[in-house]
């Protein structure tokens, strides 16, 4: 998330014309899919984090159980 965000900010800082470039022959600029993509990435990553939590708990729990049985 940090990498993506600072990449984006660096683009804003150093190469604005790239983001302002129209895509697909229309007026929609490259910045729009990139910006919306960042928002979606944030949602996706928190979603992964959500799934990751229970999985990590399960792994820890399994390790604990195996440790006890020995």
């Amino acid at each position, binding site marked *: *998330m*940090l990498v993506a*965000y*600072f990449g*984006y*900010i*660096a683009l*804003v*800082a*150093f190469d*604005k014309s790239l*983001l*302002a470039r*129209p895509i697909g022959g*229309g*007026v*929609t*600029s490259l*910045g*729009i899919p990139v*910006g*919306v993509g*960042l*928002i*979606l990435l*944030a*949602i996706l*990553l*928190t*979603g992964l*984090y*959500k799934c*990751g*939590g*229970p999985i990590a708990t399960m792994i820890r729990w399994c390790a604990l159980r195996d440790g006890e049985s020995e």
Partner: protein
Amino acid sequence: MTGPGPNRDRDVRGVRRARSLVIRRLGRRRTKTRADFYAAGGGVSGFRNGLAIAGDYMSAASFLGISSQIFGVGYDGLIYSIGFLVGWPLILFLMAERLRNLGKYTFADVASPVSPAAGPECGGLDARRRALLPDRADGRRRAADQIAVPPRCLAYAVLIVGVLMTLYVLFGGMIATTWVQVIKAVLLLGCATIMAFAVLAQFGFSPEALFARAVELKANLAAAGGMGPEQAYRQGPLHHGAGTFLTDPISAISFGMALMFGTGPLHILMRFFTVPPTPPGAHVGALGTGWIGYFYILTFIIGFGAIILIGNNPAWVDATGALPATPDAKSISPRRWAATSSWASSRPSPSRRSWRSSQA
């Protein structure tokens, strides 16, 4: 959207106020212990909590602020949305779970381990009060700014709302607060969805057509202001960094960092104390992020809609596309509202009853 904007705004807020009074009463009936008061007994369901987080996050201010930022400077407004949103997953990843494991009710439990006897309770109360109150007071003040009221009434309104709000937090605790945020989130999301849908419907659900029209309009306005065609085109809302906003790299980087770290919503983290211990808050965080992200995308569409529907309407802006000189809504007299709203046409001379003219 060019219809009775302020009236609808007022209606939405009136409904919200009335409903929140009922909710406070319901909430109070269920608040019994200290844990109930601070953390709603740790028993708020994940879905409700996700909505409450979203409600905490997306205030009327971010809605009005970001859509008007897009109205003003175009694409650059989206940077605000992204910066605000990105701060949230980071705080979630790095702090939320740790905080929940260490603290009891608030982050002050974690921050003040030196004097465990008195510190956490007082610090907690203070932090909680600070987190709950100014946010709300500020919101109400800004809400009042939206409505054309004379200054004297405004003072009374702020006073009454302040008293109500204090009672509300004191008696309702976290349960009442949670419910208020849930309803705020539902109202904001619902209204924004309807508005964005209506905007897109005007352009056959093609964002491309929407953007094209906005670019054309801005270029026309700039040309009317005496710019050459090339320069006028560069004023377009998709020209990132057009105008004076974020012109050099240093300010862009500083702005980006300030957005992400500076707006760190610590008071929202307290919501994690209201979740049952398993699953550990992440579920709620994901739900919240989903709603917030969706909301910001809607705001972007609404901002572009505003460029076209308001920026093109002579009742609202002058020939160069500028809003009236004083930015707050109070400066727009009721006569002006009346001129733009449809119901007024059936009434005899609404300007006679204008507050402004009766005071002058």
